Protein backbone atom coordinates (compact mmCIF):
# COMPACT_ATOMS: atom_id res chain seq x y z
CA UNK A 1 0.00 0.00 0.00
CA UNK A 2 1.29 3.42 -0.77
CA UNK A 3 1.86 5.88 2.03
CA UNK A 4 -0.90 7.97 0.59
CA UNK A 5 -3.55 5.64 1.94
CA UNK A 6 -2.13 5.84 5.44
CA UNK A 7 -3.38 9.40 5.65
CA UNK A 8 -6.39 9.78 7.92
CA UNK A 9 -9.62 9.34 6.06
CA UNK A 10 -11.28 12.71 6.02
CA UNK A 11 -13.83 14.08 3.67
CA UNK A 12 -12.32 16.24 0.97
CA UNK A 13 -13.06 19.84 1.73
CA UNK A 14 -12.36 19.33 5.42
CA UNK A 15 -9.07 20.70 6.60
CA UNK A 16 -7.26 17.45 7.27
CA UNK A 17 -4.62 17.42 9.98
CA UNK A 18 -1.30 16.90 8.25
CA UNK A 19 0.08 14.19 10.49
CA UNK A 20 -3.06 12.28 11.24
CA UNK A 21 -2.64 12.35 15.00
CA UNK A 22 -4.63 15.46 15.82
CA UNK A 23 -8.30 14.84 15.20
CA UNK A 24 -10.58 17.74 14.45
CA UNK A 25 -12.81 18.74 17.30
CA UNK A 26 -16.08 17.48 15.89
CA UNK A 27 -14.72 14.01 15.24
CA UNK A 28 -13.81 13.23 18.82
CA UNK A 29 -17.23 12.10 19.97
CA UNK A 30 -18.03 8.42 19.80
CA UNK A 31 -21.41 8.86 18.15
CA UNK A 32 -20.19 9.70 14.63
CA UNK A 33 -18.27 6.47 14.62
CA UNK A 34 -21.35 4.58 15.70
CA UNK A 35 -23.41 6.34 13.02
CA UNK A 36 -20.83 5.29 10.48
CA UNK A 37 -21.22 1.65 11.45
CA UNK A 38 -24.99 1.90 11.37
CA UNK A 39 -24.89 3.46 7.91
CA UNK A 40 -22.80 0.71 6.36
CA UNK A 41 -24.54 -2.10 8.24
CA UNK A 42 -27.23 -2.84 5.62
CA UNK A 43 -24.70 -2.91 2.81
CA UNK A 44 -22.39 -5.14 4.81
CA UNK A 45 -25.23 -7.57 5.49
CA UNK A 46 -26.21 -7.72 1.81
CA UNK A 47 -22.64 -8.07 0.54
CA UNK A 48 -21.86 -10.71 3.14
CA UNK A 49 -24.96 -12.67 2.20
CA UNK A 50 -24.80 -12.48 -1.55
CA UNK A 51 -21.06 -12.10 -2.17
CA UNK A 52 -19.09 -13.17 0.88
CA UNK A 53 -20.96 -16.33 1.74
CA UNK A 54 -21.21 -17.55 -1.87
CA UNK A 55 -17.51 -16.90 -2.34
CA UNK A 56 -16.66 -19.05 0.70
CA UNK A 57 -19.20 -21.59 -0.45
CA UNK A 58 -17.63 -21.60 -3.91
CA UNK A 59 -14.22 -22.47 -2.49
CA UNK A 60 -15.66 -25.19 -0.25
CA UNK A 61 -17.67 -26.56 -3.13
CA UNK A 62 -14.55 -26.84 -5.27
CA UNK A 63 -13.06 -29.08 -2.56
CA UNK A 64 -16.15 -31.30 -2.40
CA UNK A 65 -17.87 -33.63 -4.78
CA UNK A 66 -21.41 -32.37 -5.03
CA UNK A 67 -23.62 -34.27 -7.43
CA UNK A 68 -27.31 -34.13 -8.06
CA UNK A 69 -27.88 -36.82 -5.43
CA UNK A 70 -26.60 -34.58 -2.62
CA UNK A 71 -28.39 -31.59 -4.15
CA UNK A 72 -31.80 -33.20 -3.90
CA UNK A 73 -31.34 -35.36 -0.82
CA UNK A 74 -29.70 -32.57 1.16
CA UNK A 75 -26.97 -34.95 2.29
CA UNK A 76 -23.59 -33.33 2.91
CA UNK A 77 -21.25 -33.67 -0.06
CA UNK A 78 -18.01 -35.52 0.69
CA UNK A 79 -14.76 -33.60 0.73
CA UNK A 80 -12.32 -34.73 -1.92
CA UNK A 81 -9.42 -32.34 -1.37
CA UNK A 82 -7.90 -30.98 -4.51
CA UNK A 83 -9.24 -33.75 -6.74
CA UNK A 84 -11.38 -31.33 -8.75
CA UNK A 85 -8.45 -29.01 -9.29
CA UNK A 86 -6.27 -31.93 -10.34
CA UNK A 87 -8.92 -32.94 -12.84
CA UNK A 88 -9.37 -29.43 -14.17
CA UNK A 89 -5.72 -28.46 -14.36
CA UNK A 90 -4.74 -31.86 -15.77
CA UNK A 91 -7.24 -31.53 -18.59
CA UNK A 92 -5.63 -30.17 -21.76
CA UNK A 93 -9.08 -29.01 -22.82
CA UNK A 94 -9.10 -26.63 -19.87
CA UNK A 95 -5.87 -24.97 -20.97
CA UNK A 96 -7.27 -24.55 -24.46
CA UNK A 97 -10.19 -22.71 -22.86
CA UNK A 98 -7.81 -20.53 -20.82
CA UNK A 99 -5.78 -19.68 -23.91
CA UNK A 100 -8.94 -18.95 -25.90
CA UNK A 101 -10.21 -16.67 -23.13
CA UNK A 102 -6.93 -14.77 -22.92
CA UNK A 103 -6.67 -14.31 -26.69
CA UNK A 104 -10.32 -13.25 -26.87
CA UNK A 105 -9.75 -10.72 -24.07
CA UNK A 106 -6.62 -9.24 -25.61
CA UNK A 107 -8.19 -8.90 -29.06
CA UNK A 108 -11.34 -7.31 -27.68
CA UNK A 109 -9.56 -4.90 -25.35
CA UNK A 110 -7.07 -3.75 -27.99
CA UNK A 111 -9.78 -3.26 -30.61
CA UNK A 112 -11.98 -1.41 -28.14
CA UNK A 113 -9.20 0.94 -27.05
CA UNK A 114 -7.98 1.69 -30.57
CA UNK A 115 -11.43 2.30 -32.03
CA UNK A 116 -12.59 4.29 -28.99
CA UNK A 117 -9.48 6.46 -29.13
CA UNK A 118 -10.14 7.13 -32.80
CA UNK A 119 -13.76 8.00 -32.05
CA UNK A 120 -12.74 10.35 -29.22
CA UNK A 121 -10.21 12.13 -31.45
CA UNK A 122 -12.75 12.48 -34.24
CA UNK A 123 -15.24 13.90 -31.74
CA UNK A 124 -12.76 16.54 -30.68
CA UNK A 125 -11.79 17.51 -34.20
CA UNK A 126 -15.34 17.59 -35.56
CA UNK A 127 -17.85 20.42 -35.61
CA UNK A 128 -20.30 20.73 -32.81
CA UNK A 129 -23.26 19.25 -34.72
CA UNK A 130 -21.17 16.24 -35.68
CA UNK A 131 -19.93 15.75 -32.12
CA UNK A 132 -23.54 15.83 -30.94
CA UNK A 133 -24.48 13.25 -33.57
CA UNK A 134 -21.66 10.92 -32.54
CA UNK A 135 -22.54 11.38 -28.87
CA UNK A 136 -26.20 10.54 -29.45
CA UNK A 137 -25.22 7.45 -31.43
CA UNK A 138 -22.79 6.35 -28.74
CA UNK A 139 -25.43 6.81 -26.04
CA UNK A 140 -27.92 4.72 -28.01
CA UNK A 141 -25.40 1.94 -28.55
CA UNK A 142 -24.25 2.09 -24.93
CA UNK A 143 -27.81 1.70 -23.75
CA UNK A 144 -28.48 -1.41 -25.82
CA UNK A 145 -28.87 -4.47 -23.59
CA UNK A 146 -26.28 -7.17 -24.38
CA UNK A 147 -28.96 -9.78 -25.00
CA UNK A 148 -30.74 -7.51 -27.45
CA UNK A 149 -27.62 -6.47 -29.35
CA UNK A 150 -26.52 -10.09 -29.68
CA UNK A 151 -29.88 -11.08 -31.13
CA UNK A 152 -29.74 -8.13 -33.52
CA UNK A 153 -26.23 -9.07 -34.67
CA UNK A 154 -27.34 -12.66 -35.19
CA UNK A 155 -30.02 -11.28 -37.45
CA UNK A 156 -27.50 -9.08 -39.29
CA UNK A 157 -25.27 -12.13 -39.77
CA UNK A 158 -28.11 -14.54 -40.55
CA UNK A 159 -26.86 -17.08 -43.08
CA UNK A 160 -29.83 -16.77 -45.38
CA UNK A 161 -31.34 -13.30 -45.09
CA UNK A 162 -28.59 -11.40 -43.26
CA UNK A 163 -27.62 -7.94 -44.43
CA UNK A 164 -23.92 -8.65 -43.93
CA UNK A 165 -23.81 -11.59 -46.32
CA UNK A 166 -25.70 -9.54 -48.91
CA UNK A 167 -23.32 -6.59 -48.46
CA UNK A 168 -20.15 -8.68 -48.79
CA UNK A 169 -21.74 -10.53 -51.70
CA UNK A 170 -21.85 -7.21 -53.59
CA UNK A 171 -18.09 -7.46 -54.02
CA UNK A 172 -17.60 -8.99 -57.46
CA UNK A 173 -16.59 -12.62 -57.36
CA UNK A 174 -17.55 -13.14 -53.72
CA UNK A 175 -20.37 -15.56 -53.07
CA UNK A 176 -21.73 -15.25 -49.56
CA UNK A 177 -25.08 -16.97 -50.14
CA UNK A 178 -25.89 -19.15 -47.16
CA UNK A 179 -22.54 -18.44 -45.57
CA UNK A 180 -22.81 -19.51 -41.92
CA UNK A 181 -20.54 -17.30 -39.82
CA UNK A 182 -20.76 -19.60 -36.83
CA UNK A 183 -19.81 -22.76 -38.72
CA UNK A 184 -16.21 -21.96 -38.02
CA UNK A 185 -15.22 -20.87 -34.52
CA UNK A 186 -12.71 -18.28 -35.74
CA UNK A 187 -15.22 -16.38 -37.86
CA UNK A 188 -17.84 -17.03 -35.19
CA UNK A 189 -15.63 -15.38 -32.59
CA UNK A 190 -15.11 -12.60 -35.12
CA UNK A 191 -18.84 -11.88 -34.96
CA UNK A 192 -18.86 -12.17 -31.16
CA UNK A 193 -15.87 -9.81 -30.97
CA UNK A 194 -17.78 -7.37 -33.13
CA UNK A 195 -20.75 -7.53 -30.75
CA UNK A 196 -18.57 -7.03 -27.68
CA UNK A 197 -16.41 -4.25 -29.13
CA UNK A 198 -19.43 -2.46 -30.59
CA UNK A 199 -21.05 -2.46 -27.17
CA UNK A 200 -17.84 -1.46 -25.37
CA UNK A 201 -16.77 1.47 -27.53
CA UNK A 202 -19.28 4.03 -26.17
CA UNK A 203 -18.16 3.95 -22.52
CA UNK A 204 -14.48 4.06 -23.44
CA UNK A 205 -14.89 6.68 -26.17
CA UNK A 206 -16.99 9.01 -24.02
CA UNK A 207 -14.61 8.61 -21.07
CA UNK A 208 -11.59 9.27 -23.27
CA UNK A 209 -13.30 12.21 -24.94
CA UNK A 210 -14.01 13.72 -21.54
CA UNK A 211 -10.29 13.39 -20.79
CA UNK A 212 -9.07 14.56 -24.18
CA UNK A 213 -11.23 17.67 -24.09
CA UNK A 214 -9.47 18.62 -20.84
CA UNK A 215 -6.04 18.53 -22.47
CA UNK A 216 -4.99 22.15 -23.10
CA UNK A 217 -4.96 22.82 -26.84
CA UNK A 218 -1.89 25.05 -26.38
CA UNK A 219 0.24 22.05 -25.41
CA UNK A 220 -0.55 20.18 -28.59
CA UNK A 221 -0.28 23.30 -30.74
CA UNK A 222 3.14 23.98 -29.26
CA UNK A 223 4.23 20.44 -30.13
CA UNK A 224 2.90 20.84 -33.68
CA UNK A 225 4.70 24.17 -34.06
CA UNK A 226 7.89 22.45 -32.93
CA UNK A 227 7.48 20.03 -35.81
CA UNK A 228 5.86 16.96 -34.18
CA UNK A 229 3.58 14.90 -36.40
CA UNK A 230 -0.01 14.25 -35.38
CA UNK A 231 0.91 10.75 -34.21
CA UNK A 232 3.89 12.02 -32.23
CA UNK A 233 1.78 14.73 -30.66
CA UNK A 234 -0.74 12.16 -29.54
CA UNK A 235 1.82 9.67 -28.21
CA UNK A 236 4.14 12.19 -26.56
CA UNK A 237 1.77 14.92 -25.37
CA UNK A 238 -1.84 13.77 -25.23
CA UNK A 239 -1.38 10.16 -24.19
CA UNK A 240 0.88 10.84 -21.16
CA UNK A 241 -1.70 13.28 -19.81
CA UNK A 242 -4.47 10.72 -20.34
CA UNK A 243 -2.47 7.80 -18.97
CA UNK A 244 -4.45 7.47 -15.72
CA UNK A 245 -7.70 7.32 -17.72
CA UNK A 246 -6.21 4.78 -20.10
CA UNK A 247 -5.06 2.62 -17.21
CA UNK A 248 -8.52 2.52 -15.75
CA UNK A 249 -10.47 1.91 -18.95
CA UNK A 250 -7.96 -0.78 -19.91
CA UNK A 251 -8.23 -2.65 -16.64
CA UNK A 252 -12.02 -2.32 -16.61
CA UNK A 253 -12.17 -3.59 -20.18
CA UNK A 254 -9.93 -6.53 -19.34
CA UNK A 255 -12.14 -7.46 -16.41
CA UNK A 256 -15.31 -7.16 -18.48
CA UNK A 257 -14.04 -8.94 -21.58
CA UNK A 258 -12.44 -11.76 -19.62
CA UNK A 259 -15.84 -12.75 -18.28
CA UNK A 260 -17.95 -12.25 -21.40
CA UNK A 261 -20.81 -14.68 -21.14
CA UNK A 262 -24.08 -13.30 -22.47
CA UNK A 263 -22.89 -12.58 -25.99
CA UNK A 264 -21.41 -16.05 -26.46
CA UNK A 265 -24.34 -17.79 -24.81
CA UNK A 266 -27.02 -15.97 -26.77
CA UNK A 267 -25.10 -15.94 -30.05
CA UNK A 268 -24.88 -19.73 -29.90
CA UNK A 269 -28.56 -20.17 -29.07
CA UNK A 270 -27.99 -21.14 -25.40
CA UNK A 271 -25.94 -24.17 -26.49
CA UNK A 272 -22.36 -23.03 -27.05
CA UNK A 273 -20.31 -25.72 -28.79
CA UNK A 274 -17.06 -26.73 -27.06
CA UNK A 275 -14.99 -24.60 -29.41
CA UNK A 276 -17.00 -21.53 -28.34
CA UNK A 277 -16.41 -21.96 -24.64
CA UNK A 278 -14.48 -19.36 -22.69
CA UNK A 279 -13.82 -19.74 -18.97
CA UNK A 280 -17.16 -18.33 -17.86
CA UNK A 281 -19.14 -20.48 -20.26
CA UNK A 282 -16.98 -23.54 -19.54
CA UNK A 283 -17.59 -23.28 -15.80
CA UNK A 284 -21.28 -22.69 -16.32
CA UNK A 285 -21.65 -25.66 -18.66
CA UNK A 286 -19.93 -27.94 -16.18
CA UNK A 287 -22.19 -26.85 -13.35
CA UNK A 288 -25.56 -26.55 -15.01
CA UNK A 289 -25.08 -28.53 -18.19
CA UNK A 290 -23.83 -31.80 -16.72
CA UNK A 291 -24.46 -31.11 -13.01
CA UNK A 292 -20.76 -31.23 -12.13
CA UNK A 293 -21.16 -28.37 -9.67
CA UNK A 294 -17.85 -29.01 -7.94
CA UNK A 295 -15.87 -29.10 -11.15
CA UNK A 296 -17.56 -25.91 -12.31
CA UNK A 297 -16.73 -24.35 -8.95
CA UNK A 298 -13.05 -25.28 -9.31
CA UNK A 299 -12.97 -23.65 -12.76
CA UNK A 300 -14.66 -20.57 -11.31
CA UNK A 301 -12.09 -20.36 -8.50
CA UNK A 302 -9.26 -20.51 -11.03
CA UNK A 303 -10.99 -17.78 -13.06
CA UNK A 304 -11.31 -15.58 -9.97
CA UNK A 305 -7.65 -16.11 -9.14
CA UNK A 306 -6.62 -15.16 -12.66
CA UNK A 307 -8.72 -12.02 -12.48
CA UNK A 308 -7.40 -11.25 -9.01
CA UNK A 309 -4.04 -10.42 -10.55
CA UNK A 310 -5.73 -7.72 -12.57
CA UNK A 311 -7.81 -6.63 -9.61
CA UNK A 312 -4.78 -6.06 -7.41
CA UNK A 313 -3.27 -4.03 -10.22
CA UNK A 314 -6.48 -2.03 -10.54
CA UNK A 315 -6.80 -1.32 -6.83
CA UNK A 316 -3.17 -0.31 -6.56
CA UNK A 317 -3.64 2.00 -9.49
CA UNK A 318 -6.72 3.50 -7.86
CA UNK A 319 -4.79 4.11 -4.67
CA UNK A 320 -1.98 5.72 -6.57
CA UNK A 321 -4.45 8.01 -8.27
CA UNK A 322 -5.67 9.10 -4.87
CA UNK A 323 -9.19 7.82 -5.34
CA UNK A 324 -9.48 6.74 -1.74
CA UNK A 325 -9.54 10.01 0.18
Amino acid at each position, binding site marked *: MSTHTEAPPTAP*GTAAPPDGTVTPRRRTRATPRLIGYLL*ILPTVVVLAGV*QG*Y*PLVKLVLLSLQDLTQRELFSGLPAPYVGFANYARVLGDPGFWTVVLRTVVFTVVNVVLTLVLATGTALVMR*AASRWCRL*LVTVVLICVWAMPQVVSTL*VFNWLFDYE*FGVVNWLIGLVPGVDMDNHDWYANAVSGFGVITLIVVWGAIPFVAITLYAGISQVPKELEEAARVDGASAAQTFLRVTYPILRPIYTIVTVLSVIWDFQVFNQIWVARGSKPEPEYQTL*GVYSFMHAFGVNEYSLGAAVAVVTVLLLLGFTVFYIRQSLRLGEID
Partner: protein
Amino acid sequence: MATLSARRPRSRGRTVANVVGVAVSVVMIFPVYWMLLTAVKPGSEILTYTPRFWTWHPSGSNFVRAVRSPHFLDALGNSVLVAFGTMLIALVLALLAAVAIARFRFYGRRAFVFVVLVVQMVPLSALIIPIYLLLNSIDAVNSLGGVVLTYLAFVLPFTIWTLRGFVAGVPAELEEAAMVDGCTRFQAFRKIVLPLVFPGLLATSIYALIQSWNEFIMAYVLLSDQNKETLPVWLVSFVTARGIDYGALMAGATMMALPVVVFFAIIQRHVASGLTAGAVKG
Protein backbone atom coordinates in the same frame (compact mmCIF):
# COMPACT_ATOMS: atom_id res chain seq x y z
CA MET B 1 -9.74 36.28 -49.56
CA ALA B 2 -6.76 36.39 -47.24
CA THR B 3 -8.83 35.33 -44.23
CA LEU B 4 -10.37 32.49 -46.18
CA SER B 5 -7.05 30.98 -47.21
CA ALA B 6 -5.73 31.42 -43.67
CA ARG B 7 -8.61 29.41 -42.33
CA ARG B 8 -8.52 26.70 -44.93
CA PRO B 9 -6.11 24.15 -43.35
CA ARG B 10 -8.05 24.13 -40.16
CA SER B 11 -11.46 23.85 -41.76
CA ARG B 12 -10.24 21.10 -44.07
CA GLY B 13 -9.25 19.05 -41.02
CA ARG B 14 -12.63 19.75 -39.57
CA THR B 15 -14.39 18.64 -42.74
CA VAL B 16 -12.46 15.37 -42.72
CA ALA B 17 -13.36 14.86 -39.07
CA ASN B 18 -17.01 15.57 -39.82
CA VAL B 19 -17.07 13.07 -42.66
CA VAL B 20 -15.40 10.41 -40.51
CA GLY B 21 -17.73 11.27 -37.64
CA VAL B 22 -20.81 10.79 -39.82
CA ALA B 23 -19.42 7.52 -41.20
CA VAL B 24 -18.70 6.21 -37.70
CA SER B 25 -22.20 7.23 -36.61
CA VAL B 26 -23.85 5.47 -39.53
CA VAL B 27 -21.93 2.23 -38.96
CA MET B 28 -22.42 2.28 -35.20
CA ILE B 29 -26.14 3.03 -35.29
CA PHE B 30 -26.94 0.62 -38.13
CA PRO B 31 -27.69 -2.42 -35.91
CA VAL B 32 -30.10 -0.29 -33.87
CA TYR B 33 -31.72 1.05 -37.02
CA TRP B 34 -32.01 -2.46 -38.44
CA MET B 35 -33.68 -3.67 -35.26
CA LEU B 36 -36.25 -0.84 -35.40
CA LEU B 37 -36.82 -1.24 -39.12
CA THR B 38 -37.29 -5.00 -38.90
CA ALA B 39 -39.70 -4.49 -36.03
CA VAL B 40 -42.01 -2.24 -38.06
CA LYS B 41 -41.65 -3.98 -41.43
CA PRO B 42 -44.53 -6.08 -42.70
CA GLY B 43 -43.65 -9.77 -42.76
CA SER B 44 -43.27 -9.90 -46.53
CA GLU B 45 -40.40 -7.38 -46.46
CA ILE B 46 -38.34 -9.04 -43.75
CA LEU B 47 -37.13 -12.24 -45.32
CA THR B 48 -35.91 -10.94 -48.67
CA TYR B 49 -32.68 -11.89 -50.37
CA THR B 50 -32.04 -8.26 -51.25
CA PRO B 51 -32.50 -6.36 -48.00
CA ARG B 52 -34.85 -3.37 -48.02
CA PHE B 53 -33.43 -0.41 -46.15
CA TRP B 54 -36.68 1.45 -45.79
CA THR B 55 -40.32 0.52 -45.56
CA TRP B 56 -43.31 2.40 -46.93
CA HIS B 57 -45.70 0.09 -45.13
CA PRO B 58 -44.90 0.25 -41.43
CA SER B 59 -47.04 -2.11 -39.43
CA GLY B 60 -47.54 -2.99 -35.81
CA SER B 61 -48.21 -6.65 -36.47
CA ASN B 62 -44.78 -7.75 -35.22
CA PHE B 63 -45.41 -6.00 -31.92
CA VAL B 64 -48.83 -7.57 -31.64
CA ARG B 65 -47.34 -11.05 -32.18
CA ALA B 66 -44.61 -10.37 -29.62
CA VAL B 67 -47.00 -9.06 -26.98
CA ARG B 68 -49.49 -11.87 -27.53
CA SER B 69 -46.85 -14.57 -27.36
CA PRO B 70 -46.90 -16.62 -24.17
CA HIS B 71 -45.54 -15.02 -21.03
CA PHE B 72 -44.59 -11.67 -22.52
CA LEU B 73 -46.75 -9.73 -20.08
CA ASP B 74 -45.51 -11.86 -17.16
CA ALA B 75 -41.95 -11.14 -18.23
CA LEU B 76 -42.61 -7.43 -18.55
CA GLY B 77 -44.19 -7.29 -15.10
CA ASN B 78 -41.39 -9.30 -13.55
CA SER B 79 -38.74 -7.12 -15.14
CA VAL B 80 -40.39 -3.95 -13.90
CA LEU B 81 -40.68 -5.36 -10.39
CA VAL B 82 -37.11 -6.59 -10.28
CA ALA B 83 -35.62 -3.43 -11.80
CA PHE B 84 -37.47 -0.96 -9.60
CA GLY B 85 -37.08 -3.12 -6.51
CA THR B 86 -33.34 -3.32 -7.03
CA MET B 87 -33.11 0.37 -7.79
CA LEU B 88 -35.00 1.54 -4.71
CA ILE B 89 -33.18 -0.70 -2.25
CA ALA B 90 -29.78 -0.05 -3.83
CA LEU B 91 -30.37 3.69 -3.68
CA VAL B 92 -31.13 3.71 0.04
CA LEU B 93 -28.32 1.33 1.00
CA ALA B 94 -25.77 3.04 -1.24
CA LEU B 95 -26.61 6.53 -0.02
CA LEU B 96 -26.20 5.44 3.60
CA ALA B 97 -22.89 3.72 2.88
CA ALA B 98 -21.63 6.59 0.72
CA VAL B 99 -22.33 9.10 3.48
CA ALA B 100 -20.61 6.81 5.94
CA ILE B 101 -17.38 6.55 3.97
CA ALA B 102 -17.36 10.16 2.82
CA ARG B 103 -18.27 11.80 6.10
CA PHE B 104 -17.55 9.53 9.06
CA ARG B 105 -14.42 7.98 10.45
CA PHE B 106 -14.56 4.54 11.94
CA TYR B 107 -12.27 1.60 12.30
CA GLY B 108 -12.54 -0.70 9.33
CA ARG B 109 -13.63 2.11 7.05
CA ARG B 110 -10.74 1.56 4.70
CA ALA B 111 -11.28 -2.19 4.79
CA PHE B 112 -14.91 -1.55 3.83
CA VAL B 113 -13.91 0.61 0.87
CA PHE B 114 -11.42 -2.05 -0.18
CA VAL B 115 -14.03 -4.80 0.00
CA VAL B 116 -16.50 -2.72 -2.00
CA LEU B 117 -13.91 -2.21 -4.73
CA VAL B 118 -12.79 -5.83 -4.80
CA VAL B 119 -16.34 -7.18 -4.84
CA GLN B 120 -16.85 -5.28 -8.08
CA MET B 121 -14.22 -7.48 -9.68
CA VAL B 122 -15.61 -10.87 -8.71
CA PRO B 123 -17.02 -12.32 -11.91
CA LEU B 124 -20.75 -12.81 -11.85
CA SER B 125 -20.43 -16.14 -13.59
CA ALA B 126 -18.20 -17.44 -10.77
CA LEU B 127 -20.87 -16.84 -8.17
CA ILE B 128 -23.82 -18.31 -10.04
CA ILE B 129 -23.17 -21.83 -8.80
CA PRO B 130 -23.05 -21.07 -5.06
CA ILE B 131 -25.81 -18.47 -5.27
CA TYR B 132 -28.02 -21.00 -7.01
CA LEU B 133 -27.25 -23.63 -4.36
CA LEU B 134 -27.80 -21.10 -1.59
CA LEU B 135 -31.17 -19.97 -2.90
CA ASN B 136 -32.05 -23.59 -3.66
CA SER B 137 -31.37 -24.58 -0.06
CA ILE B 138 -33.72 -21.89 1.29
CA ASP B 139 -36.34 -22.56 -1.39
CA ALA B 140 -35.84 -19.11 -2.90
CA VAL B 141 -35.25 -20.36 -6.42
CA ASN B 142 -37.99 -18.95 -8.66
CA SER B 143 -38.52 -16.02 -6.35
CA LEU B 144 -38.11 -12.50 -7.65
CA GLY B 145 -36.93 -11.46 -4.18
CA GLY B 146 -33.96 -13.78 -4.48
CA VAL B 147 -33.06 -12.20 -7.81
CA VAL B 148 -33.35 -8.67 -6.41
CA LEU B 149 -31.06 -9.64 -3.54
CA THR B 150 -28.53 -11.02 -5.99
CA TYR B 151 -28.65 -7.94 -8.19
CA LEU B 152 -28.14 -5.69 -5.17
CA ALA B 153 -24.76 -7.23 -4.58
CA PHE B 154 -23.69 -6.48 -8.13
CA VAL B 155 -25.10 -2.98 -8.26
CA LEU B 156 -24.08 -1.72 -4.82
CA PRO B 157 -20.31 -1.38 -5.33
CA PHE B 158 -20.71 0.97 -8.26
CA THR B 159 -23.54 2.96 -6.70
CA ILE B 160 -21.70 3.36 -3.40
CA TRP B 161 -18.49 4.39 -5.10
CA THR B 162 -20.18 6.91 -7.39
CA LEU B 163 -22.32 8.41 -4.64
CA ARG B 164 -19.28 8.66 -2.38
CA GLY B 165 -17.76 10.97 -4.98
CA PHE B 166 -20.83 13.17 -4.99
CA VAL B 167 -21.14 13.32 -1.19
CA ALA B 168 -17.44 14.03 -0.79
CA GLY B 169 -17.83 16.84 -3.32
CA VAL B 170 -20.17 18.73 -1.00
CA PRO B 171 -17.97 20.80 1.34
CA ALA B 172 -18.47 19.72 4.94
CA GLU B 173 -18.36 23.43 5.86
CA LEU B 174 -21.78 23.86 4.25
CA GLU B 175 -23.26 21.27 6.57
CA GLU B 176 -21.41 22.71 9.54
CA ALA B 177 -22.72 26.17 8.75
CA ALA B 178 -26.25 24.80 8.66
CA MET B 179 -25.68 23.10 12.00
CA VAL B 180 -24.29 26.30 13.50
CA ASP B 181 -27.47 27.96 12.32
CA GLY B 182 -29.50 25.46 14.32
CA CYS B 183 -30.08 22.51 12.03
CA THR B 184 -29.70 19.03 13.42
CA ARG B 185 -27.21 16.76 11.68
CA PHE B 186 -30.05 15.04 9.85
CA GLN B 187 -31.67 18.33 8.81
CA ALA B 188 -28.33 19.58 7.53
CA PHE B 189 -28.00 16.41 5.53
CA ARG B 190 -31.51 16.57 4.15
CA LYS B 191 -31.46 20.28 3.28
CA ILE B 192 -27.86 20.75 2.20
CA VAL B 193 -26.33 17.48 1.06
CA LEU B 194 -29.31 15.70 -0.44
CA PRO B 195 -30.19 18.38 -3.02
CA LEU B 196 -26.54 18.67 -4.03
CA VAL B 197 -26.07 14.95 -4.56
CA PHE B 198 -29.34 14.64 -6.47
CA PRO B 199 -27.59 14.26 -9.85
CA GLY B 200 -25.58 11.44 -8.33
CA LEU B 201 -28.71 9.75 -7.03
CA LEU B 202 -30.28 10.05 -10.45
CA ALA B 203 -27.25 8.64 -12.23
CA THR B 204 -26.82 5.72 -9.86
CA SER B 205 -30.51 4.87 -9.79
CA ILE B 206 -30.63 4.75 -13.57
CA TYR B 207 -27.52 2.61 -13.50
CA ALA B 208 -29.12 0.17 -11.06
CA LEU B 209 -32.33 0.18 -13.07
CA ILE B 210 -30.58 -0.57 -16.35
CA GLN B 211 -28.30 -3.23 -14.89
CA SER B 212 -31.12 -5.18 -13.34
CA TRP B 213 -33.40 -4.70 -16.36
CA ASN B 214 -30.71 -6.11 -18.67
CA GLU B 215 -29.25 -8.89 -16.54
CA PHE B 216 -29.52 -12.30 -18.12
CA ILE B 217 -27.58 -15.24 -16.64
CA MET B 218 -28.70 -14.94 -13.02
CA ALA B 219 -32.31 -14.61 -14.06
CA TYR B 220 -31.87 -17.50 -16.49
CA VAL B 221 -30.56 -19.80 -13.75
CA LEU B 222 -32.62 -18.58 -10.82
CA LEU B 223 -36.02 -18.21 -12.49
CA SER B 224 -36.85 -21.46 -14.22
CA ASP B 225 -40.65 -21.10 -14.10
CA GLN B 226 -41.85 -19.61 -17.34
CA ASN B 227 -44.14 -17.16 -15.60
CA LYS B 228 -41.24 -15.92 -13.48
CA GLU B 229 -39.01 -15.10 -16.44
CA THR B 230 -37.71 -11.56 -16.89
CA LEU B 231 -37.62 -9.90 -20.31
CA PRO B 232 -34.09 -10.90 -21.37
CA VAL B 233 -34.81 -14.54 -20.56
CA TRP B 234 -38.14 -14.35 -22.35
CA LEU B 235 -36.47 -12.80 -25.39
CA VAL B 236 -33.79 -15.47 -25.60
CA SER B 237 -36.28 -18.31 -25.14
CA PHE B 238 -38.37 -16.71 -27.88
CA VAL B 239 -35.65 -17.66 -30.35
CA THR B 240 -35.30 -21.26 -29.35
CA ALA B 241 -38.94 -22.01 -28.67
CA ARG B 242 -40.49 -21.20 -32.02
CA GLY B 243 -37.81 -21.09 -34.69
CA ILE B 244 -36.87 -17.57 -35.55
CA ASP B 245 -39.68 -15.13 -36.17
CA TYR B 246 -37.35 -12.20 -36.77
CA GLY B 247 -40.11 -9.64 -37.00
CA ALA B 248 -41.59 -10.45 -33.61
CA LEU B 249 -38.11 -10.99 -32.14
CA MET B 250 -36.96 -7.53 -33.19
CA ALA B 251 -40.25 -6.07 -31.94
CA GLY B 252 -39.60 -7.71 -28.56
CA ALA B 253 -36.00 -6.52 -28.62
CA THR B 254 -37.20 -3.00 -29.37
CA MET B 255 -39.65 -3.09 -26.49
CA MET B 256 -36.90 -4.22 -24.15
CA ALA B 257 -34.29 -1.74 -25.39
CA LEU B 258 -36.42 1.36 -25.91
CA PRO B 259 -37.07 2.23 -22.25
CA VAL B 260 -33.40 1.78 -21.51
CA VAL B 261 -32.32 4.06 -24.33
CA VAL B 262 -34.84 6.73 -23.36
CA PHE B 263 -33.87 6.64 -19.68
CA PHE B 264 -30.23 6.63 -20.55
CA ALA B 265 -30.58 9.55 -22.96
CA ILE B 266 -32.47 11.70 -20.46
CA ILE B 267 -29.74 11.49 -17.85
CA GLN B 268 -26.86 10.86 -20.25
CA ARG B 269 -24.67 13.67 -18.96
CA HIS B 270 -25.06 12.58 -15.36
CA VAL B 271 -24.31 8.96 -16.14
CA ALA B 272 -21.23 9.81 -18.16
CA SER B 273 -19.93 12.16 -15.49
CA GLY B 274 -20.96 9.71 -12.76
CA LEU B 275 -19.07 6.84 -14.34
CA THR B 276 -16.00 8.93 -14.94
CA ALA B 277 -16.18 10.53 -11.50
CA GLY B 278 -15.79 7.08 -10.02
CA ALA B 279 -13.02 6.02 -12.31
CA VAL B 280 -11.06 9.06 -13.29
CA LYS B 281 -10.99 11.25 -10.20
CA GLY B 282 -7.48 12.24 -9.37
